[in-house]
């Protein structure tokens, strides 16, 4: 008996090791997700199946606008984050030397603070009578009157980028670290300028990191809630609308419809971005 058990365990060792994680995911992720989706297809009364909520949602200009705004905001945050993150990752991997540990710590340190506290920090800094306006109006005399920064799209995007840039930096840095520097040196020896060597050798070789960073940031921005609810920015996004259905209107079926649509958008964008990255030949 003992031998039989041992041989079964030996044959299925990999599956057995994976089983706890798979069971956990199935019970606490896949099943609730499935149940949530089912609710969106349930008719108002009785049993059955209906697409009425999806039809109503996807034919309403207001809701379509919310979907577009959610995707455009996430894409903008992902693009800005990658642009900011690449030079930071480059310096971290290539130039920082013994300071690399410190840079990594400085990147990660903000993530150790509650996102609510960080967002309140933006409120304090950029309030009408906050530090930034005080500096611009009273100390430097650049402005006559304080600016209204809060509740503007620019500040909401800046706050999201601030939260999400570290994810992009770490994704790009991990790939950049694996790039063989001799390839760039070869390009330089063959007469390429530094910029051309970067553009035609280093950048293509790090597309995987850029893609991963962009996907990661896009996904998190797609579902981001706290920053937008506190800093507003006038954005109307699906996560805000979903929260409202639970907290204010208690329309759980509509919330399920929206969350399923948000999930489909996220998966669709993930698939698209992966295809784009792979098309680069990486």
């Amino acid at each position, binding site marked *: 008996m003992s031998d039989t058990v041992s041989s079964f*365990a030996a044959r299925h060792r990999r599956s057995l090791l994976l089983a*706890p994680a798979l069971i956990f995911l199935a019970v606490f992720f896949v099943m609730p997700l499935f149940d949530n989706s089912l609710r969106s297809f349930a008719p108002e009364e009785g049993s059955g199946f209906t697409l009425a909520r999806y039809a109503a949602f996807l034919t309403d200009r*207001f809701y379509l606008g919310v979907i577009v705004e959610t995707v455009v905001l996430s894409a903008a945050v992902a693009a800005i984050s990658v642009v900011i993150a690449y030079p930071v990752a480059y310096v971290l991997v290539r130039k920082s030397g013994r300071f690399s540990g410190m840079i990594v710590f400085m990147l990660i340190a903000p993530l150790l603070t509650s996102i609510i506290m960080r967002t*309140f920090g933006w*409120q*304090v800094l950029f*309030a*009408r*009578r*906050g530090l930034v306006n005080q500096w611009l109006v009273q100390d430097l005399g650049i402005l006559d009157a304080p600016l209204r920064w*809060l*509740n503007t799209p620019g500040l909401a995007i800046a706050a999201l980028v601030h939260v999400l840039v570290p994810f992009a930096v770490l994704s790009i840095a991990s790939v950049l670290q694996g790039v063989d520097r001799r390839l760039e040196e070869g390009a330089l020896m063959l007469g390429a300028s530094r910029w051309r060597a970067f553009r035609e050798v280093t950048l293509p070789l790090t597309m995987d990191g850029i893609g991963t960073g962009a996907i990661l940031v896009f996904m998190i921005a797609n579902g981001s809630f706290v920053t937008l*609810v*506190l800093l*507003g920015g*006038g*954005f*109307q996004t699906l996560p*805000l*609308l979903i*929260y*409202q259905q*639970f*907290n*204010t*209107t*208690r*329309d*759980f079926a509509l919330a399920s419809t929206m969350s399923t649509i948000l999930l489909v958008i996220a998966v669709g964008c993930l698939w698209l971005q992966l295809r784009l990255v792979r098309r680069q030949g990486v």
Partner: protein
Amino acid sequence: MKLNRRHFLGASAATGLAGLSGLPLRAQENVLNVTAYGGVWEQAIRDCFVAPFEAKTGATGTVSLGGPAQWLAQVEANPENPPLDVLIMTPDLAVIAAEGDLMDDFTVEKLPNLADIPQEFTDACLGKGTYFDYGVGGITYNKQYVSEPPKSFAAFVEGVAAGDFIASVPSISYGPTPVFFLWALNNALGGTVDNVDPFFEAMAKMKDNLVFWAGPNDFFNHLASGEADLGIYFDGRTWNHVDEGVDWIDFINPEEGGAMTTVAVQKPKHASPLAWDYINEMLDPVNQSKFADILNYGVTNKKVQYSEKLAARVPSMSDAILPPYAEIARVRNEWVDRWNREIGM
């Protein structure tokens, strides 16, 4: 015995399963699971209601933190075996829960202290609950920047529209907004439950000078950081800030009367019978006085004697308007949809 990794994993899994089987997935016989908002609320619930309940019954009270929408969803998910025995509810959700036949009837036989609660508060919960605490939504302002605050909702709208003040008002994502802001302002401006045009017209006039708060702490940040000069907020929370040493903040109950923002208590059907003992403690005048002193909110037992400080702060029930919660519940989702489309989230 040699302990290898396989043995370790097996033992861990067995221990975990054994532990799971002992989880208190359902309230045990001598344990009552009650609800509270976080922060000072939780402590007040523990000190003023849970402690005397435990002393009298010998049972244990556990406190679940969260919000009414979440608690009601938990009971709706498992009405035959509710995970919570006593619910703290917003008035509109109390009506929904009562209409859904999820809650038990409140009677003086079960709750002797109910005799001293105004009948209208029990009627407002369709007899399946009652109000135990109330505040008023009004105008909170920063005295450093507002020397002549508006005394009425109408003056508030005029002043904000004219750019005399930047106002912080609750966003539609905050659960009580449809009642204590939308209905209250609309009512003050001559609207009705079926005609909220006055509210939306006023918001359109004020839009350039508004910021929105998502939660009470957010409002205080708006005032403290100077983003806003005044706004729509609660009396009790304002006085709590004053008691914490904030000397620049003050509150006005608008002349038209602010919306009475009540907190209801309900017992889900099939919840522990011990809930009656606990709710009776919640309605007790001595316990309610203590609760009011901590939270700076009015309480509903007619026999309550407020301290001198509190008596000056708590508006009498006649100085606030009890919103028609049942009527509002009927049209609330239409209001929210209109807000989303005309004002934004």
